[in-house]
């Protein structure tokens, strides 16, 4: 039964992982620039960022597939830099399907135990337990090509967990799967990870994945960690403009920042929560779609360009005068009155403090995340 697996695994769970000033360059490109990160025992930390931000390099350095140029990686307080990947005791699930095509699901899961010279009977028993844990007990005898993508990744997860790894490394394990399977599997991974208490580093470019699964999320950009925080904090108190826009949907509205710590935009003057790097003068006010209000109004300040029904709320896209496009969440009943082409008034509720960033420049800001 699955319980014996859990009992066996909790003893080895709870290893801390620390990256200290890890730097890695590929030619002239700094993939990792003095990155430091502490992962507490049993914690799931997601590294989130656009492609090429260095998140995969960080994971591969922890795994032992890449060497850092400088800095160190500590696992359970010990520097592992000199230890080859094969002896680091880390379970890894890869982005592409990595099951050994010549072995059945059961033999794939048992491979790590075989390398550890486990007796064949023990190995088979434990592999079967793990397959049961990921819900694939009935597929034990099948070969990878007979399994769907989602099943293959579940077998890969079971295989990584079979060795009772000190650290579980997940390198975009869901990105090759279709949307529905992806949601199911991420819930399954998170449940298992919490039950087993395995310290986990998870790399993804999908913010929804990172925010829904991780205890903490590290947002990366150009080889540096911009912010490491719990999902809710990342969303509500982003440390930098990049994080603010990369995580969730963010509107940029032109405004005037005053020296007294208030900003004026959309004919409202509101307090500023964090001015980031902006100095008084013309700035961008950063507001989430739920932070704006919109109402149908003849002669308003914008025109509805589109609506996206999200269930209880509808996200309305509005083109403001001055060529600024914003997205505003309103209840779906209210949105019924805002057909594309109709005039509306977008306002900024004055009570809530807002974030402010330097004036948008096209080459610096990331593409808006819908």
């Amino acid at each position: 039964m699955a319980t014996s697996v859990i009992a066996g695994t909790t003893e080895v769970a709870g290893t801390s992982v620390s990256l200290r000033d890890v730097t890695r360059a590929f030619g002239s490109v700094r993939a990792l620039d003095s990155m430091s990160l502490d992962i507490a025992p049993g914690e799931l930390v997601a590294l989130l960022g656009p492609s090429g931000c260095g998140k995969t390099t960080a994971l591969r350095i922890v795994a032992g597939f890449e060497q850092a140029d400088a800095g160190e990686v500590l696992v359970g307080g010990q520097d592992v830099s000199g230890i080859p990947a094969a002896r680091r005791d880390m379970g890894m699930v890869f982005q592409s399907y990595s099951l050994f095509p010549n072995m059945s699901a059961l033999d794939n899961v048992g491979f790590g135990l075989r390398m550890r010279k486990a007796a064949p009977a023990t190995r088979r028993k434990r592999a079967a337990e793990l397959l049961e844990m990921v819900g694939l007990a009935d597929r034990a005898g099948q070969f990878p090509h007979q399994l769907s993508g989602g099943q293959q990744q579940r077998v890969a997860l079971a295989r990584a967990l079979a060795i009772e790894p000190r650290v579980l490394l997940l390198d975009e394990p869901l990105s090759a799967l279709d949307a529905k399977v992806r949601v199911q599997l991420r819930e399954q991974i998170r449940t298992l990870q919490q039950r087993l208490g395995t310290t986990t580093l998870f790399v993804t470019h999908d913010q929804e994945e990172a925010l829904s699964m991780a205890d903490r999320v590290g947002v990366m950009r150009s080889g540096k960690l911009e912010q490491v925080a719990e999902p809710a904090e990342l969303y509500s108190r982003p440390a930098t403009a990049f994080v603010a826009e990369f995580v969730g949907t963010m509107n940029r509205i032109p405004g005037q920042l005053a020296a007294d710590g208030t900003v004026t935009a959309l004919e409202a003057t509101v307090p500023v929560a964090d001015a980031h790097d902006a100095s008084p003068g013309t700035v961008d006010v950063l507001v989430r779609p739920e932070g704006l209000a919109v109402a149908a109004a003849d002669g308003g300040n914008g025109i509805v360009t589109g609506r996206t029904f999200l269930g209880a709320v509808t996200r309305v896209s509005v083109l403001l005068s001055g060529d600024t496009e914003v997205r505003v969440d309103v209840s779906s009943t209210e949105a019924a009155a805002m057909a594309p082409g109709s005039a509306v008034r977008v306002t900024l509720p004055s009570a809530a403090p807002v974030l402010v960033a330097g004036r948008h420049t096209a080459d610096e800001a990331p593409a808006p995340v819908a």
Partner: protein
Amino acid sequence: MAPISRAVIRPMMSQPPAGRRGPRRRGQLGIWRWVVLLLAGAYFILPLATAQRFAGLAAFSTVFTQPGFGAAIWLSAQLAIVTTVITLGLMVPTAIYVHLRMPRLKRLLEGITILPIVIPPIVLILGVLDVAPLWLKASQWLLSLEYVILAMPFAYRAIDAGLRALDLKTLTEAASSLGAGWVTTLWRVLLPNLGTALMSATILIVALVLGEFTMASLDLWVTFPVWIVQFDQLNAQMSVAASLFALYVTWVVLMAITLVGTRQARRFGRGEVSLFTVTANSTTVGES
């Protein structure tokens, strides 16, 4: 009859698949396929049939007892085995290493492995005989070493095709993260998944060694092809019977290898072992 009428009917019955192949084109293709097959079939079978007729059936029963036949076959078989072992032993680790660690050298390696095709065997053998030490020249294994060079283009291409079909990097890293060292990864993960490629390479090497004449005769070893030519002067009928015998045996062996390989490959969800696939791969030599 049947194939042609089917080709005519098919366009009307089946939905054209999306893409370039329209129904008309497909019908034409069907007819041409059979025309080409018939022509090629005639091209291959006519000489064989006439040879068979010339040799007669009686020669087949006595060919095995001809002087030198057994020794020549045995020498060729030994050379085929040793050449295969050396070639695969050299090419497999080299190809894997280059694919994994030095992908930029892939083109260079491809270029180097083509050289034996570009350089005529006669040039190769004269060069070898000029520089090889006497003790090696006196050994039949010098031939094997020469055949290793000759077989390189075919063996490399077959292995290369197999490696391209695998996600080599992910498989080796997965094995490594589970605690497997280099030898274990090669033995338990990579080689089993290269079965089809190794099979193709083996088939090509064996066929090459069993048919090579120039080098063997200049090295003064009576391999099977050399024996056939020598014996031809004594008894042409018997010599033709021996050639046909060799051809049939080779066919049976290749078919057996292909069948076994295909069965194995299907189990792992890989492609089929087919001589034609390998030929298709090696025709890209000129392009690469």
